[in-house]
């Protein structure tokens, strides 16, 4: 996939009209382990599959809380995700300090997009190598957003990013009409089914490697504990 002399930095266009460094950054997202999000009118859910760097280590967390009303899951470079998450948390705190209300979700995503875009227009820095799936609630309802290293952002009813995410997306495409009025439990089960479809035989799909988080119009962002994940995985098996 070597594109010759046009892929050295973000300051160079390729003859096909592409910024190849940005595309490489998006490849890093595609190589990351899968995470997916889906939402109803009342809840938004994130499901992710964690990876362990080795047999000896623990699984690396992919889900981070940004504020009471917002959280994210990532695929790609975890360090870049932490950096963006830190920025988002700071922005949420400042907004709450100034306005005494939660940061509107789309406005924060827009700030991330602006930040990401700057990195695609510089010779000396590299783009962020992480895609974020952000769930949140604000006065306009529940939201699910995806951010890209390119600086684009998209809003979804349901989506998946990372390795083998196409399988999950197919499941979500076939079932998303059922999500709008689904209960929280149904929504999480849908998410887990979609996740399972993207998991290979050898990969761990258990309470230690699966991460579930949700946020609701009346409920704060919560990451489920191991025993709660366990009960959902058991329900899935039935």
């Amino acid at each position, binding site marked *: 996939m070597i594109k010759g002399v046009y892929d050295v930095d973000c300051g160079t266009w390729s003859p096909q009209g592409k910024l190849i460094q940005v595309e490489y950054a998006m490849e890093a997202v595609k190589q990351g382990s899968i995470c997916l999000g889906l939402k109803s009118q009342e809840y938004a859910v994130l499901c992710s599959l964690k990876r362990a760097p080795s047999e000896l280590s623990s699984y690396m967390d992919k889900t981070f809380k940004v504020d009471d009303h917002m959280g994210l899951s990532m695929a790609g470079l975890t360090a870049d995700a932490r950096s963006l998450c830190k920025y988002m948390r700071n922005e949420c705190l400042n907004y709450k*300090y*100034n*306005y*005494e*209300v939660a940061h*509107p979700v*789309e*406005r924060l995503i*827009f700030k991330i997009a602006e930040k990401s875009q700057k990195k695609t227009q510089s010779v000396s820095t590299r783009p962020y190598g992480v895609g974020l799936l952000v769930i949140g609630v*604000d*006065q*306009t309802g529940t939201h699910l957003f995806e951010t890209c290293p390119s600086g684009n952002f998209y809003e979804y009813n349901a989506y998946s990013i990372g390795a083998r995410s196409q399988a999950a997306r197919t499941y979500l495409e076939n079932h998303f009409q059922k999500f709008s009025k689904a209960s929280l439990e149904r929504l999480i089960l849908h998410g887990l089914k979609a996740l399972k479809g993207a998991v290979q035989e050898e990969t761990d799909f258990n309470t230690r490697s699966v991460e579930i988080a949700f946020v609701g119009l009346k409920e704060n962002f919560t990451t489920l504990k191991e025993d709660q994940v366990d009960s959902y995985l058991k329900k899935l098996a039935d």
Partner: protein
Amino acid sequence: MDTTSSYGKMAMYKNVNKFEVINQQTVYAASGEVSDFQELTRFLREVERRSLNAADGYTHNAHDYANLLARKQYQMRNKGDPFLVQSVIGGIVDGKPYLAVIDPFGTPLQKTAVLTGYARYLCPPIVQNYWDETADEEKARRVVEECFKVLFYRDAKAVDRIQIAIVTERGVTIDEPIKLKTKWDHEAFLTRANEKLHTQ
């Protein structure tokens, strides 16, 4: 709100509109230094404009603006250069009326009735005795007029022109200024006290 802009004790401009409509659910007014009020208006309008530019269906409401003003006034107070105003934000938040006052220190207080300036000293009994939250618009207007009447009687620097702004779910209306009906033909004003003493 009265319609004067004073230069110290001198009522330099007597027909000034001192309500600023920030958006259709928020009105801003202030008591104190008019230039500071204008500066804060500029600040609030800038914030509103950024919402307009974002065009994402989200707008700030009166509660957001009240807190923002509190933060701004607090910031300047900490620098030893306070905005010498008592800011008042009135509006509708989540379908309910919202009213808050922010003092020059940056303290926000959400209240159902706000009195600033000389009204803090002269008007509490009027508001307490003749108005409560169940009063209708007509009663509220009469109480407001009565308060300003007392202020005009008692404050030598005051002018008898006032304006009332109403915010409802349908939007903001700022009425034309009205002249207060005050009585100056008291016996005591027509004849000097101790007439005999003065004419001897």
